[in-house]
């Protein structure tokens, strides 16, 4: 039988699903991305290095912060600029705020309806008003951080090559501090709510890739690590990963040693969950102990745990934060290449630039997390389809959509 699900909704960007399920559990599954090409990488040619983050963060409206951070880090890498500890701390706050905001959005508004074979988020807002308010408060908390530190939540403004032009006032930091207790209670309640829901049983051996850092649960800086612990610098990773293009398809797929792989919350928690903050670790270990988890539906649970972790981390960072005015870093503009890797909410994000001595961009390559995991999602769907055979048509379609949405794909990022 053929299964066609047109115009997947409750997902960032436009895509459809085509699958087939035949005798003997033979299955095929494909995500057809339908987002128009924007050629952002081409558009950057000739533009000023100072416009790289301005333009690339507009690749995506739900994760602009990570493009902003990664573009700027890549340029700093090209120009050999070492930023101050304060700059790094502020940027980590931006990233943490983004994770809280994006995950809370995805968890309640996009994925929750899937647990109730339900199409409409508005019915769930009515059914679970307390949890809806928790999700809204957490999103506003994430946004408050990015408004205070970045100057604006969607497409931030304060962060620049070399540091911040404007830093948050001590008053705005105090305001954020006063919100942390509620945010942590909210995050824990949301995690416990999602832990009580029923997840389809499905497992498949998967390669998980994530950033890795000795000092902390890596989201901003680090090497790229694989499931079995091998580590690569961002440049080595960039040289080894392959982007594969299919004719007529706007979104590419990534291959790592000729195989598909997963990135995102589940990959991060699997690879270095032992570095999670206290409350987050408690929740994760209560469900899974110390084992690795191979059920992609649990990407949702991993996201809830990361929200808790991030709020705890924001609390820690704000506690120690004593801001002072800093002079802009001095640096020369030279020709060269720069690369950076950060963890977007959906997984590893890579920006690579070649720049000339006039400070103009010659070449850009951006590899987004959805490009990295689309192939793995299709493999998971192919493996999962046979389990949907005994289901009714409606339920089968619901479960397929649930698996796709559990990955939290961002098709605008994948296409850029």
């Amino acid at each position, binding site marked *: 039988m053929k299964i066609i699900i047109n115009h997947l909704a409750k997902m960032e960007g436009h895509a459809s699903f085509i699958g087939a399920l035949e005798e003997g559990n033979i299955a095929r599954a494909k995500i057809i991305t339908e987002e*128009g090409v924007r050629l952002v990488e081409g558009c950057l040619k000739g533009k000023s290095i100072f*416009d790289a983050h301005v333009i690339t963060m*507009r690749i995506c409206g739900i994760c602009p912060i990570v493009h902003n951070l990664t573009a700027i880090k890549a340029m700093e890498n090209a120009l050999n600029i070492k930023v101050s500890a304060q700059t790094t701390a502020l940027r980590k706050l931006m990233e943490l705020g983004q994770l809280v905001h994006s995950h809370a959005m995805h968890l309640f508004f*996009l994925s929750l309806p899937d647990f109730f074979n339900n199409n409409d988020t508005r019915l769930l807002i009515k059914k679970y008003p307390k949890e809806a308010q928790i999700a809204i408060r957490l999103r506003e908390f994430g946004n408050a951080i990015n408004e205070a530190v970045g100057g604006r939540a969607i497409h931030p403004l304060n962060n620049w090559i070399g540091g911040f032009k404007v830093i948050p006032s001590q008053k705005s930091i105090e305001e954020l501090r006063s919100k942390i207790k509620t945010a942590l209670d909210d995050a824990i309640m949301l995690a416990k709510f999602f832990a009580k829901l029923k997840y389809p049983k499905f497992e498949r051996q998967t390669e998980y890739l994530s950033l890795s850092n000795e000092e902390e649960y890596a989201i901003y800086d680090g090497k790229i690590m694989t499931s079995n612990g091998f580590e690569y610098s961002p440049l080595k990773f960039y040289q080894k990963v392959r982007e594969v293009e299919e004719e007529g398809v706007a979104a590419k797929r990534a291959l790592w040693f000729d195989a598909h792989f997963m990135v995102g919350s589940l990959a991060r928690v699997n690879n270095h969950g032992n570095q999670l903050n206290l409350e987050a670790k408690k929740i994760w270990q209560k469900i899974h102990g110390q084992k690795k988890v191979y059920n992609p539906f649990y990407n949702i649970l991993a996201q809830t745990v990361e929200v808790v972790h991030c709020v705890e981390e924001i609390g820690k960072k704000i506690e120690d934060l004593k801001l002072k005015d800093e002079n802009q870093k001095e640096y020369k503009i030279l020709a060269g290449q720069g690369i950076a890797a950060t963890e977007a909410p959906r997984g590893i994000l890579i920006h690579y630039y070649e720049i000339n001595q006039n400070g103009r961009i010659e070449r850009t390559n951006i590899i987004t997390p959805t490009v990295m995991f689309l192939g793995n999602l299709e493999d998971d769907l192919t493996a999962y389809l046979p389990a949907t055979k005994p289901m009714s048509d409606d339920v089968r379609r619901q479960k397929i959509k649930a698996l796709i949405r559990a990955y939290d794909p961002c098709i605008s990022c994948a296409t850029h």
Partner: protein
Amino acid sequence: MLKKLPKKKIGIVGLTSCEGCQFSILDLGNKFLELIKDVELVQFRLLEEKVFVTPKMDICFVEGSVVTKYNEKIIKEIRQQTKILVALGNCASLGGIHRIKNYHQPQEMIKEVYVNGDKLDNPEILDLKDIIQVDYAIPGCPINKAEFLKLIYSLLKGIDFRIPPRPICEECQIKGYTCVLMKESPMDSRGEMCFGPIIQGGCDAICLKSEMPCQGCRGIYKGAQVENHLRHLENMGYTKEEINHQLEIYGLRDDVEKILNYKH
């Protein structure tokens, strides 16, 4: 006994964009939930998943520009089905960041990004108003949430909402921000290339609050002295090439060229 009026049917649709304007609306949080109690939200694919047929609407907000053939089909359907069409954000109003390719041989550019570029839809990016009739536009990248609420509540009351034409400078000066045109920065002794004097105000000069020059995401306002300002920027030491690169970011370059050609 007052007869209760039927709720207006509202749609929020995305073509090709980053969806930041739609997420801005969702970021209204409880204000958004209040809004959807006052209207019948018949289409918003971030929250619902009905069978995909463009329904009849009173007001439809459209984000994004037309890139794929499917985008083209949908925007024409939307125009037919809705009484009022509002362009949401810079992509719909002026083309968005991807309009940059219009100025740089798009058929060549696509080959740099894709090996099989000729199989993908790669049209010239247009303002939505050059494809179908647009009744209102909320400019910006992203939109100003307060402006969105002002517009929708005005329209629901039958009030014609217009953004008063004025430069960013008005808000910038009221808020007391330093004029970056006149400020020497450590990297550039010329002063910054700010388009504020010719750009439509209404964003609270938010970029200037962050000491970033205005790059024009809200578009040129009616009556702006474009030629004067560009000449001023050149006198400051900026080349035509540098100015054009910045004009391209939010799709302003073609509007500026039209205005300058009209003068001569």
